[in-house]
Every structure is written in C-alpha cells, then in structure tokens.
C-alpha cells in the first residue's frame, strides 16, 4: 500500500469515527471519570464493548499470523506516562479523541487543550533530547533492560510462540474477564434503578 493510500484509508476511518463519536457523545475521559466520580457507566459500557470485540478479533487474527500488532516494548515510563495523561485528561475534560471531536463541534476549550497537548509534546522532546529516556523505539530489543527500566515486549503472539497455545485462547480468557466486568456494571445499574424507583415511591408517598 502506498503512503497516499494509507493516508486516505486512515482519513476515511477517522471521519467515520469522528461522526459516530459526535452523534453518540462518547467520551473516553467520561468513561473513566464518570465511573469514578458519579458511578454512572454510559461511556464505560461502550468502551468495554469495543474492547471485547477487539480482543476476540485481534487475538483471533494474530493466531493466524494476520494483522499488524504493535511492536512495543513496555517500561515504567508506560505507567508513568499514562498516569500523567490520566490526570491531564480529567483536568482538560477531554482525551486525545474528544479534543478533536469537540473541536469539530466548535468547542474552543477542546482546541485549547489540543494546542497545549502539542506544546507538552514539544516540551517533552526537549527533555528527551537532554536525558535520552525512555530509549528510542529503534534501540529497543524486546528483551528486559532493567538499567533503562524497560521490561521488554510481550503480547498474545509471544505467548503463542512461547507456550504453543493459539493466541485466541488467551483472547477468550481476557474476553471472559471483560464480560464479567460488563455484567457487573449492568447488575449495578439495575440496583441503582431499583433504588431510584423506591426513592420515587417514597417521595410520592410523602407528598400524598
């Protein structure tokens, strides 16, 4: 595939994603923030649904040697970076997706967040050029490198190669865990609804 075709495919994918996100008001930040702060799960359920479908499909295709899984070494920087990101997205009220989607809806605050995401990235490039950590992806070997706080590379495919068990088997286990979380949320929502109805009846009883 030529770079131009790649860019066209990516643009079409992004456009449909942007449209569906805008029409559904889905927000990744809300999926985490609302579950933590308000115990509401509208977005959390959607995120879990996507994760379940993707787990089955990605590990299924990886079992067959298809697809383009990420070659990604993991280190303590992975945890630290996403920790900072998690704080940032709640403060900004948007994540990487919703900054673009909300900007497209005319939200100047989201555009402001986007601008400072770029600024943050540029600032980090200056720091990286000074301390050279975390190691550049080109020098990552897939093996643990403890002095650089890197743990190496492992995914469903490396498990398949090492243990001789198809990647989809591990995918099914992860799917079952995600499904259990999804069902626990549904149960909790049912409980909240029952409580709400009881409360309403009590209020109606008092008023009568």
């Amino acid at each position, binding site marked *: 595939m030529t*770079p131009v075709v790649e860019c066209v495919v990516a643009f079409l994918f992004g456009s449909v994603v942007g449209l569906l996100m805008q029409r559904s008001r889905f927000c990744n930040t809300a999926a985490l923030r609302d579950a933590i702060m308000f115990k509401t799960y509208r977005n959390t359920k959607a995120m879990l649904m996507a*994760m379940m479908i993707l787990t089955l499909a990605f590990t299924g295709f990886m079992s067959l040697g298809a697809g383009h899984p990420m070659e990604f070494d993991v280190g303590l920087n992975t945890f630290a970076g996403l920790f900072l990101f998690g704080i940032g997205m709640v403060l900004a009220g948007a*994540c990487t997706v919703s900054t673009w989607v909300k900007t497209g809806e005319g939200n100047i605050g989201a555009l402001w967040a986007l601008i400072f995401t770029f*600024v943050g990235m540029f600032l980090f490039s*200056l720091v990286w050029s000074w301390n050279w950590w975390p190691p*550049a992806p080109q020098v990552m070997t897939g093996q643990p490198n403890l002095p650089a706080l890197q743990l190496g590379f492992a995914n469903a495919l490396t498990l398949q190669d090492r243990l001789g068990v198809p990647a989809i088997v591990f995918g099914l286990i992860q799917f079952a865990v995600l499904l259990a979380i999804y069902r626990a949320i549904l149960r909790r929502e049912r409980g909240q609804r029952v409580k709400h109805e009881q409360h309403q009846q009590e209020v109606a009883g008092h008023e009568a």
Partner: protein
Amino acid sequence: MEFFRKTLDPVFALATIAVLDVFLFLLLGAWTVGGGETMMTGLIAQSVLGEDLQRIPFWSIVFPPRADYWKIYISLGMLTGAFLGATLSKEFYLRTPRRTSEWLMIMVGGLLMGIGIRLAYICNVSTFFGLLPEMNLGGYLAISGIVAGAWVGSLFYKKILEG
C-alpha cells in the same frame, strides 16, 4: 434524517468503530491518535524553526517529521467527521470556557496529556483499543496508569469544583 436528530447509543457506536478498527488492524495497524499528534507537532515545529529543529535530537531520531504519516490523517478525519456530524445535526456552535480558572485547568490538562503520551510512547486510544486487545504487557501497565491518573485527576477536579 433520523441519524442527525437522535443521539446514537454509544455501545452501538463503539461496537461499529471496533469492527472498523479490525479492518484497520488488518490493513495498517490498530487505531491510534498520539503518534499522529506527535508528527503534527514535529511538522509545526519544523515550519517555525526550520533547520534549527535538527538541533533537537528527538526530531531526527524518534519522530523525523513527515507529512505522509498515515496516523496524522486519522485525527484530521475525526475532526472532519465530527464537524460534519455537528453541522448536519445543527449542533455546531462556538463554546468558549468562561472563567480564567477553566482556561488554566484545560491548559495544564493539555500539557500533562502531551507530556504523558510522549513519556509512555502511547496514548489512551492505543491503550484501550490497540495494546490491550493485542494483550500487550504495556496495555495492562498503561491501563493501571491511566485509571490511577484519572482517579487522582478526579480528586483535583472535585476540589476545584467544590472550591
């Protein structure tokens, strides 16, 4: 058209996006946003600094700026799709944060997101819709990080809301 009048069920929307992401995974790689944003940062910096950008090794070693990087166009697509959706459903209007504290909070949030993405080499989209479904070890570490961060962020947010 009904589609532009009613709010779409997010579970349906995300299930559809997941199916499309499977096709993208087979063709190019899973959905991601942070890489494209970094490349855009590099391109903007290059247009401002010109040759001086080469003095910052990050931009010659990790992310040499190039405009034909497919991940950039996912973000531009999302912007376009959202604009079309908002316009056709008559939901496009300019919304501006009112208080200075809001501008400041969003600014700090944006900076932390940018620094965090580059420190981790991934964003939240890659975490939930790429690494985790591939069962990459990084996905589990990243999810632990983002949940812990969102929890701390929520504490700050509550304090600011109440304060």
